C-alpha cells in the first residue's frame, strides 16, 4: 500500500532527524564547556563517587576511530583510578593500531599532565595475558587490553577445545565443566576481571561481539560518539554507574 510506504518513509526521516538533532545539541553543549582538566580535580571527582568500576570496557561501534580522543578518554579513566580497561571494535582497528594508540597516549599524557610523566605504569595486552609478566604490585599500574572479534565467541571455542583436550587426556572430568570452573580458566587466560561497566560509543545499539561470557553483570551505557568526548560526559556515565544497585538475582 502506497500510504503505508509514504508514512514509513516519513517515520524514518523523523527518527533520523531527531537523532541528528540530539547529536547536535550534545555537541553545542560540549563546545560551551571547555574544561581545563587537572589531576587533583579528577581524583577528587573519583573520590566523590559511591563506587568506581574496576574494569571498564570501551566498545566503539563507529566506522572511524579517532586515536587522539580515545587516548584522552583513557587518560581520564586512568587518572580517576580505573586499573583495567579493555577496548573493542568489531573490525579490530584498535588492536591493529596498537603502536599508534601507545604513542598517542604518551603524547596526550605529557601534554595534559606536564612532565610528571611517570604517574602511570601502563601495560598493553592484545587479547591474552602475558604469562611472563609479574603480579600487579604498583598501585599506579593500568592494564589495557585490545580486543577483537577473535576474543568473543571464538575465544570461548578455544576454551571449549582446551577443556575437551583435558577431558580426553583424563585431566578433567566432564562433570567438572561448570560455570565456576570455566570462569576460572577464562580469567586465567585473560588476566582481567569481568568488566563492571561498558561504555559503548556510537549510534548502533549492540555490542557487536564484545566478550559474551564476561558481560553477565556488566552495566552497559551508551554515548553517541567518542569523537570530541569531554570529561563531563565520562564523569556523568561514571556517576550513572555508581548509582546502579546490583541485585544478583535477588
Amino acid at each position, binding site marked *: *500500500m502506497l500510504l*503505508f*510506504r509514504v*508514512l*514509513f518513509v516519513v*517515520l*524514518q526521516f523523523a*527518527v*533520523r532527524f531527531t*537523532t541528528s538533532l540530539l547529536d547536535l545539541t550534545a555537541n553545542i553543549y560540549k563546545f560551551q564547556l571547555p574544561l581545563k582538566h587537572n589531576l587533583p580535580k579528577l581524583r577528587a571527582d573519583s573520590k566523590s563517587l559511591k563506587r568506581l568500576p574496576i574494569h571498564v570496557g570501551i566498545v566503539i*561501534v563507529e566506522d572511524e576511530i579517532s586515536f587522539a580522543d580515545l587516548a584522552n578518554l583513557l587518560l581520564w579513566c586512568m587518572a580517576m583510578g580505573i586499573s583495567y580497561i579493555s577496548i573493542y571494535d*568489531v*573490525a579490530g582497528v584498535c588492536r591493529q593500531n596498537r603502536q599508534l594508540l601507545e604513542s598517542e597516549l604518551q603524547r596526550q599524557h605529557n601534554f595534559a599532565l606536564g612532565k610528571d610523566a611517570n604517574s602511570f605504569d601502563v601495560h598493553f595486552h592484545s587479547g591474552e595475558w602475558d604469562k611472563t609478566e609479574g603480579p600487579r604490585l604498583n598501585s599506579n599500574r593500568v592494564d589495557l587490553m585490545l580486543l577483537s*572479534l577473535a576474543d*568473543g*565467541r*571464538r575465544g*570461548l*571455542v578455544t*576454551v*571449549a*577445545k582446551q*577443556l*575437551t*583436550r583435558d*577431558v*580426553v587426556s583424563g585431566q578433567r572430568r*566432564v*562433570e*567438572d*565443566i*561448570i*560455570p*565456576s570452573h*570455566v*570462569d576460572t580458566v577464562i580469567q586465567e587466560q585473560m588476566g582481567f576481571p569481568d568488566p563492571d561497566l561498558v561504555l559503548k560509543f556510537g*549510534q*548502533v*545499539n*549492540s*555490542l*557487536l*561481539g*564484545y566478550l*559474551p*561470557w564476561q*558481560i*553477565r*553483570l*556488566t*552495566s*552497559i*551505557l551508551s554515548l553517541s560518539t567518542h569523537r570530541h568526548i569531554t570529561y563531563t560526559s565520562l564523569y556523568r556515565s561514571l556517576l550513572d554507574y555508581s548509582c*546502579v544497585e546490583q541485585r*544478583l*538475582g*535477588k
Partner: protein
Amino acid sequence: MQLWASVKSWIGGFCNEVLKVGPIPRHIAVIMDGNRRFAKKKSLERSEGHLKGFDKLLETLEWCQELGVTEVTVYAFSIENFSRSQEEVDGLMELARQKFTHFMQERDMIERNGLCIRVIGNVSLLPKDLQDVISQVVHMTKHHNRTFLNVCFAYTSRDEICCAMRELAQGVQMGHIKESDISETLLSQCLYTNKSPDPDLILRTSGEVRLSDFLLWQSTFSVLSFIKVLWPEFTDWDLRAAVVYYQKNYDAIQAARRTKELELAEVQRQSDYACVQKEMAQDTACPQERLQQYELHRQERTRNFVSIIDTKREKFFDDIYQNLPVSLCTQSSKKDLQSL
C-alpha cells in the same frame, strides 16, 4: 468507552502496517523486569506483581503476532533466582505450575496460532511436579511451527554454554566428532536454543542496563533496547517504539553480521585445510578434492552429532511425560549453585 477502545485498536493496527513496510525482527527476547517494583508501587503483594507480569506476557505475545514477530523468548526464572527467599521461590514455582496448566487449557488458542512452546534451561533443577506439567505442555505443542515461545526457566547463559561444552567434550571422547570440529557454529548448535535463530532484538524493561546472564552467546549481534517502564506497565506502544529502534539499527547490525559470517567461513576453511594437510602427509591426491571431501565428511559428522543431542533432549521430556525421570544434562549445575 467502547468506541474509544476500537478507535485505539484501529490506530494501532494502522501503525503496525506502517512499521511492516520496514524490517520486522523475527525473534524478540525479553527480560521481564519490574514485577516486584510494580507491586511495591501499587502496594500489592509480590505474587500479585508476578501474576500481572504473566498476564502482560500473554498480551505481548498477541501484539508480537500482530506485528509479524514469529518467535519470542522470555527470561522467566534464572538459576540465580533460587537464592531468593524460600517463600518467593515457592510462590514463583506455584505460579509457573498454574500458568503452564493454564496453557494446557488454552488448547484452541495454541492450535489456532500454531504455537510451539519450548522450555529452555536446566529443567532437572525444578520440582518434580513442575517438570511433569512442563513436559505435558512441551509434548502438546512440539509439532507446531508457526509461532514460537521459548520460556527460559532455571536458566543462565553461562550454565547453558557449559552444558554445550560438556556435550562437545563428551562427543569427542565418544568419537562422534573430532576436536577440530568444535567451532562457533557447532557450539551454537549444542546450546538449548539450537532450534532458534539468534534474537534480533533484546528488550529489558524497568531501566536496568545489564543482560544478567541472559542469552549472552546468542545476543552478541542483537540490538539491545533498555526501556524505563516496569514490565506490568509495558504497552503495545512501547513494543512499537522498540521496533522503530530496531529498524534504525538494522543496516549497521546486518553489516556487522555479514562481517562476522565471512570471518566464520574463513576460520572454518583454515581449520579444514590444516586438518587435510595433516592427513595428506604422504598422499599425493588433489588438495582441492581432498578439501571438499573433508568438508562433506565434517558436515555429516557434526550433523549426526547434533541430532544425537536433539534426540537426547527430546527423550528427556518424553521420559518425564511417561513418568520416567532421567537426567537431561550431567547434573552438575546444582552442585555449582551450592558452591556459590
